């Protein structure tokens, strides 16, 4: 716990809180200022909007510790504010509220509109207020209330202040105090070593089979490698080596009866996950097809995934080349599944596969040159596109895609 000092509604105030405590929770929990409402808690609904250093701010995605020294005004602090007083009367008159849940945020945002916009149209007001949601559909009344206060104030000769009176650069609430640090109770920076031990077998999910499971998302990819089909088929049978081509993947040991344990690390922007899991592997030499059924869990985000990868190895169009068709189906549940913008997942999967093909090609070439495949270092061992894909590699992958991939 760490002390945070603010000026709240004109009075100096402080309280101890964790670094993770956002400003809305800080005000509600330590100062009983429950006028600040929490709705979506991820910056979309606007219910928690309040004034920080005089300008509207989302208090649910602003951390109290980051506002050290800032001046915060909640709806409770607007009792004697001139614009807010006029707005409250207008909200009553125009029926600008019903349940009242969105009202504190609405008043703060509406006050800002009246302060900054000289002569907005109804459309302008609707656009500028679109960051505050009302579920009783009170928008007509809210818009009218704002219009009437603006008309009244302009008629009294009070002009708008377009920049809202702010003269300083940078995020509202920041820059009011010097360097500082705050430790979380049970700080991970000391506890991390014990957390890092390998998960025990008991925590690993077993692969369930034949239970009618269907993947949520399925996509197929094809690529061609410039090596004979027998060589590629053999290579796909050596699971450890295949895994080493997949960036971030590693096995706990060699497979026993087609059963293997392993892990894969994936990093996408700020999100990083480390899935530990098991897989069952089946291969059919006659048709040169194989399947990998796996399940995995990321302890950190409490997310789970289940997937099935099917692959077919066949002769390519060019002599001595091999075409590999891969079908990847997966279901993601838990925390990470919330981040489900399919386009982004596809982009990440494409980049992952591109690196896999690059590594595979490098290994096969090394092997064809007489080297032992196991000795050849993979080109890229960790999927962290941010730090690994230099513009050079990107260019290579682009050419790779253009030449090898036919997206289905």
């Amino acid at each position, binding site marked *: 716990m*760490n002390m945070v000092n603010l000026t709240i509604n004109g009075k100096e105030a402080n309280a101890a809180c*964790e*670094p*993770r405590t956002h400003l809305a*929770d800080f005000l509600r929990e330590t100062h009983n200022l429950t006028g600040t409402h929490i709705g979506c*808690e*991820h*910056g979309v609904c606007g219910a928690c*909007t309040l004034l*920080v250093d005089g*300008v*509207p*701010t*989302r208090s*649910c*995605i*602003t951390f109290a510790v*980051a506002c050290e020294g800032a001046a915060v005004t909640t709806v409770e602090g607007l009792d004697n504010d001139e614009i807010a007083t006029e707005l409250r009367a207008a909200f009553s008159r125009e029926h600008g509220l019903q349940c009242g849940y969105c009202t504190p945020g609405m008043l703060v945002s509406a006050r*800002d509109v009246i302060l900054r916009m000289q002569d907005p149209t109804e459309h302008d007001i*609707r656009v*500028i207020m*679109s*960051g505050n949601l009302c579920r009783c559909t009170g928008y007509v009344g809210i818009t009218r209330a704002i219009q009437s206060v603006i008309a009244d104030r302009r008629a009294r000769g009070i002009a708008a202040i377009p920049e809202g009176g*702010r003269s*300083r*650069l*940078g*995020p*509202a609430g*920041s*820059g009011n105090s*010097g*360097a*500082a*640090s*705050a*430790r*979380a109770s*049970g*700080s*991970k*920076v000391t506890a991390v070593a014990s957390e890092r031990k390998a998960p025990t077998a008991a925590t690993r999910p077993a692969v369930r089979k034949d239970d009618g499971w269907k993947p949520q998302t399925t996509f197929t990819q094809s690529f061609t490698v410039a090596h004979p089909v027998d060589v590629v088929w053999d290579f796909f049978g050596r699971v450890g080596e295949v895994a080493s081509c997949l960036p971030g993947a590693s096995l706990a040991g060699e497979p026993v009866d087609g059963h293997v344990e392993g892990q894969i690390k994936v990093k*996408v*922007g*700020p*999100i990083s996950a480390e899935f530990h899991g098991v897989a069952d592997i089946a291969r059919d030499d006659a048709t040169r097809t194989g399947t990998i059924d796996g399940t995995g869990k990321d302890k950190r985000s*409490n997310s789970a995934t289940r997937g099935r990868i099917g692959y077919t190895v066949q002769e390519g169009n060019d002599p001595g080349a091999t075409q590999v068709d891969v079908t990847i189906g997966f279901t993601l549940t838990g*925390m990470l599944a*919330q*981040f489900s913008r399919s*386009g*982004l997942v596809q*982009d*990440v999967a494409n*980049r992952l596969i591109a690196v896999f093909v690059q590594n595979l090609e490098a290994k096969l070439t090394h092997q064809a040159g007489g080297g032992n495949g196991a000795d050849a270092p993979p080109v890229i061992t960790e999927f962290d*596109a*941010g*730090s690994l*894909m230099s513009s050079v590699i990107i260019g290579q992958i682009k050419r790779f895609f253009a030449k090898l991939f036919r*997206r289905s």
Partner: protein
Amino acid sequence: MKPVNFDYARPGDVAGALRLISDEDHTVKIMAGSQSLGPMLNMRLVQPDLVVDITGIAELRDVGDGADAIVIGACVTHADFEDLRVPDVTRGALPSVARGIAYRAVRNRGTIGGSITHADPSADWISILAAVGGKVTLQGPAGSRTVAVEDYMLGALEADLQPGEMLVSVTVPKLSASARWGYYKSCRKTGEFAHAIGSFMVDPERGVSRAVVGATESRPYVFKDARKLIGDGKSDLRLDSKLADELVEAEGMADPINRQTHVAALRRAIERAQTA
């Protein structure tokens, strides 16, 4: 909807920030205005051991004026552009686009450096800065380097940051008096992330004609010599829609409806600039 309990540090200078993010044993995240990271922390998509708040670093909240460009600190906010606390050298392009980013309460804390580094394909800064020819400067253990905005973004949510590196500033060239620009984004709801973005900038005095198709599934498509596509700016601009469709397809956008939406966004960016 509460984040994991992370440690917090607010360094007073860039050197201090670089020291903190060099810790390879822990998950360290840089935070500026927290308008993208905040939601991801609340949803526990991101579970850092340490959050490094860089908004206490004065030089990152500053703007420097040069002969042919201005240099904007990473922690300058969208509202700072909107309200012209950052001098406009782009004939209104950046203030106008800033006004359309999310909502005012978000713009009061969200920063230009944070938005670019977050590298959401649908975000506004990357597309407009790619059009006007913006650059970012990164600082790390090996010193500093400057790259074009469109090269800094590698893919969805991936910026070209080496370990221990951070974005410190954005450089925006001063457009000449005859320069024209346009920006159009297609959103179903005001303030949400765009489904398609079209943007361009022509500056005949400097011999520049650039067009950008943004809000793709990955990096924006940047056409650095767009004279054939939109014109050179010396006469009326006109989009060659057929060429635009071909170029967008060559960049990898396979879905024809998706292509049409993106080409339409670019066309509207040009049409609206004509009448402006």
